């Protein structure tokens, strides 16, 4: 098991997203992540949590729990919720043009989530909901085209 560095559960409210980003930022910085990684993983977590709050719970009550762990050269973030199931991998095609990706309400967020991470995992949560896993190398990436 990868030791969890930090964990935070918030109510499904958009004005709590800043708390999640702060936790992810501080934890990854403390683990020695590059600024590039800190920016990317904050982005990916924000997009995932925003999608859950807006499209999963549809503004209704709920919760989102974010756990950050460091596994060797990677940061691994697990995002859990009890919202209706949504597998973002089915909405993200890595090599499609931007114009084709921005389809439907999840489009842009999933696109950014995909570009900001190295691996995206998903499984249903026991009892309902989603468990999303985001993996990103701590190191700086080579320059994007």
């Amino acid at each position, binding site marked *: 098991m990868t030791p969890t560095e930090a964990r935070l559960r918030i109510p499904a409210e958009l004005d709590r997203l*800043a708390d999640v980003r702060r936790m992810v930022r501080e934890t990854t910085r403390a683990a020695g992540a590059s600024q590039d990684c800190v920016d990317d993983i904050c982005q990916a977590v924000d997009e995932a949590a925003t999608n859950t709050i807006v499209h999963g719970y549809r503004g209704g009550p709920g919760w989102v729990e974010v756990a950050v762990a460091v596994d060797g050269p990677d940061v691994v973030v697990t995002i859990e919720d009890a919202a209706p199931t949504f597998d973002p991998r089915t909405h993200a095609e890595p090599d499609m043009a931007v114009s084709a990706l*921005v389809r439907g309400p999840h*489009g*842009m967020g999933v696109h950014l989530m995909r570009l900001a991470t190295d691996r995206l995992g998903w499984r249903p949560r026991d009892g309902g909901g989603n468990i999303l896993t985001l993996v990103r190398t701590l190191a700086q990436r080579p320059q994007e085209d």
Partner: protein
Amino acid sequence: MALATTVEQVDGPPPVTVVTLDGELDGATYERVIDIVRQAYEAGARKLVLDCSKLEFVSSSGLVAVHSAMRIMRGEAAPDLEQGWEALRAIRDEVDAGNVQSNLRLAGEQDGVRKVLDRTGLGPLLPSYPDRASAIASF
């Protein structure tokens, strides 16, 4: 971190309105930015600089605000947020059309914000300057 905003008029010619975004532009704060730009336009602003030098973060919802500002400054209606985040579809159309902006300019955005603009295709549509002074002088 929340988002603090200031609006400043700079005498011309041409007169330029500078909106400074200080903090994080996300799902909780983006609608406020749309309101600020709309109010500025209604008050007569026709050249607008978004000073992003203190902007630490922008999410896809923040991009909806940037795109709305583009439309408002062209004299068009902002996408209807009541339609949910369908507003993001309109960004796709904007990118497809290659609508480079003439009345809205960015100043001083940090690397993380620049990365998000470029990843979504919006970046090339928005003239960008290293700081607010050069953005103002560009009009």
